């Protein structure tokens, strides 16, 4: 754990990477959820 923190302190680009990835995951799952919801309504409307 100690070494990981030290590593990140030395290579700050990885912190950027982690932040960007988190943002991307957030956006991805938001769109994913939206897709699911739309699908559900579509199926409901078909009936």
């Amino acid at each position: 754990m100690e070494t990981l923190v030290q590593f990140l302190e030395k290579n700050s680009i990885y912190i950027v990477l982690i932040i960007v990835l988190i943002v991307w995951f957030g956006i991805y799952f938001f769109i994913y959820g939206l897709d699911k919801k739309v699908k559900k309504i579509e199926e409901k409307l078909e009936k």
Partner: protein
Amino acid sequence: MKSILRITVFVLITLVLILSIVPPIVETPKNFFEFPLIPGLEDKAKIIFFHVPTAWLTVIAYLIAMLYGIRFLKTKDIYNDMKSVSSAALGIVFCFLATLTGSVWAKFTWGSFWHWDPRETSIFILLLIYGAYFALRSALDNEEKRARLSAIYSILAFLTTPFFIFIMPRLMIGLHPGALEIDPTTGQVKASSNPVIKFEMAENMRVVFFLSLTAFTLLFFWLWNLSYRVLRLKYKLQTEMQES
């Protein structure tokens, strides 16, 4: 089929983010995970992996909007218009993203946010065309008429783009890669010495670049499909409500 697309988009974009942010920039790259140093750019060279795909998608979205507009004119099928408008709506988002990312980057590389460089001008005109397209749509309340006239407008606006491609390089001196530059001592136009303009992509950067282009294009198609479906749902619900 759809789930494959979703997973591919997820994996590809994650990969692109890692591959474009992590590799260090070194003067003489020895292994695959090192990008070559371009004097004056350093880490800022990495913008190419994000900025260019957004600009590319702006154009693709416009083309798709126009093609489905033409298809509407042929078939009179209102669903084609929905496909057209959802593509245009995404296009305007990517257009803003391309403008903003480019402009922020330009501030720190070229010194100010806006230069009226040929590419900057063309993205600005695209922004205007998108704006006019939506202004026109909002001023028409008959669905059929709205679809028809906005399709016509997108065709007319598209016809002017070759002129910009032809005009811009002659009219102004560019800062983007591939543009010309004026020699300050002689006043002659010459091939540029600007680091950005001489910019030639290294092999490994090119791989990441095309990977990114594919990833963002797939993301676009997913988003396009999604927003089209939302519009279609809204339309069907309204029709049903009117009938009952």
